[in-house]
């Protein structure tokens, strides 16, 4: 942050404290202002730090997987998928095709749920009070499917190392198909509410521009990178869990401003429905769990596996020393790395734009702080 002296009367230091309705969690942003214009920001994080990486060193591999859901608590299934893929890589096993197809369906439903929550809260921050109710209503339908499958709505613990614990319940395919059919017109409804709305346009266009070069420098991934024009998605670049079988597009836009990120995420929801429809139509038969011993003891080594979480690249770097407990688990959180770019995006903007930019980065403090 540039020098702040208390005697300088034109600059004001304002605290957008940890308790704030628009910071999506306990995020503290210290704003240095000149009137209403932002000259610099300083993010103070760590209010939700729970020491997940330290806990991992004291639990066995299977015991640690419920903790992983609680990092990005909005989209818990992706976290579970990343962790299970990382441990499976260390064990050198692969989940059977049926498990992979179900994993893809649940992960894409989870992506839709996460984007719905993002849209609802982002619109709420900007001032549009209606979309949040509709988004949460649709999110309920997705959460009902999670509840029927694995027993919990939010902290799902859906995947196990080696595959799935539960077989599909009766009526899973019909319910997922019904959800897809119900949901696609709803995306059009949200667009009707927001996309051409003049208030939305003037709040979001040309706000928080992050060009492709800046994105790569800051290591920003996910919809933010795609809105800047870089057509990169880990599901296409380094496919995992059977994504290469499905046909979908990667939405990109040119400007890299907040409006483009909104359009990219709306289009991603539609592409997710497309993936789910393809996957549900063709779930292969077979076992749902690979041959993994009861006591998981990977050989000495390390692996880094990353997936395309709804918020960006979520990576797990696991170091094993041959015992039943991991030696080190490092979680590379997309929200943590994306939040660094906040400073660059709000230089010269107004305070209201800070709220819009925090919303558009789609951060979840559980993941930033772990």
């Amino acid at each position, binding site marked *: 942050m540039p020098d702040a002296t208390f005697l300088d009367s034109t600059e004001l230091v304002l605290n957008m404290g940890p308790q704030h309705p628009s910071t999506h969690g306990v995020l503290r942003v210290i704003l240095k202002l000149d009137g209403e214009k932002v000259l610099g920001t300083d993010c103070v994080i760590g209010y939700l730090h729970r020491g997940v990486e330290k806990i991992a060193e004291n639990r066995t591999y299977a015991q640690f997987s419920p903790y992983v859901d609680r990092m990005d608590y909005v989209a818990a299934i992706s976290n579970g998928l990343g962790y299970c893929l990382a441990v499976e890589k260390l064990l050198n096993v692969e989940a059977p095709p049926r498990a992979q197809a179900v994993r893809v369906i649940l992960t894409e439903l989870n992506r839709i749920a996460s984007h719905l929550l993002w849209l609802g809260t982002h619109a709420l921050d900007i001032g549009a009070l209606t979309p949040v109710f509709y988004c949460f209503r649709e999110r309920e339908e997705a959460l*009902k499917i999670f509840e029927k499958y694995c027993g919990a709505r939010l902290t799902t613990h859906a995947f196990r190392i080696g595959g799935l614990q*539960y077989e599909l319940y009766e009526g899973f395919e019909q319910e997922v198909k019904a959800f897809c059919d119900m949901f696609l017109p709803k995306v059009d409804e949200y667009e009707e509410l927001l996309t051409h709305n003049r208030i939305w346009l003037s709040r979001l266009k040309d706000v928080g521009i992050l060009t492709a070069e800046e994105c790569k420098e800051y290591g920003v991934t996910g919809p933010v990178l795609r809105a800047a024009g870089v057509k990169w998605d880990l599901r296409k670049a380094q496919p995992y869990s059977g994504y290469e079988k499905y046909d979908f597009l990667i939405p990109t836009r040119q400007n890299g401003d907040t409006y483009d990120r909104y359009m990219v995420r709306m289009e991603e929801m539609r592409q997710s429905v497309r993936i789910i429809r393809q996957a549900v139509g063709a779930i292969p038969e077979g076992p749902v769990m690979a041959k993994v011993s009861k006591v998981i003891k990977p050989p000495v080594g390390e692996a880094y596996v990353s997936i395309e979480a709804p918020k960006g690249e979520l990576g797990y770097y696991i170091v094993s020393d041959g015992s039943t407990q991991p030696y080190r688990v490092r979680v590379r959180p997309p929200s943590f790395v994306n939040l660094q770019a906040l400073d660059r995006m709000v230089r010269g903007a107004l305070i209201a734009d800070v709220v819009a930019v925090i919303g558009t980065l789609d951060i979840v403090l559980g993941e930033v702080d772990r």
Partner: protein
Amino acid sequence: MIWSFLKKVFLVDLFEGLWVTFRNQKTKYIYTEQYPAERPKVAERYRGAPRLNLNPETGEPLCIGCNLCALACPENLIVMTSERNEKTKRKEMKTFLFDTSRCMFCGLCEDACPSDALELTQDFELATYTREGQVWTKQMMEEGPKPTRYTC
């Protein structure tokens, strides 16, 4: 273009949004659940309050005292003791303590139980007035929580 100018003056885009809201005002779209008058139906696999099952025919506890649930729990909140029953020559569970205040309802104990004794049921009303009331004994585990029923 005259058309876009007229659209701007007559607030067409704002009315489009308002029309969506008005459409959703029909009473059939009400989504609110009237809890606690009607208790929501939770799924069969819902991970709620734990319960120790009894054999439906004989009424004997199904627990064989193997301690696998305690070993599987990430929080180490299950404490059980067992002793060998001389008559049947088998291990029998004597005391069972389950601390629901630290439980994260992950279901690992339920997955680990070999005899389907420990099960996470559909009860989700687990609030108590004291911290000690959150630690469940064997009897509370077999009966389940008894929340107050509110009816309007």
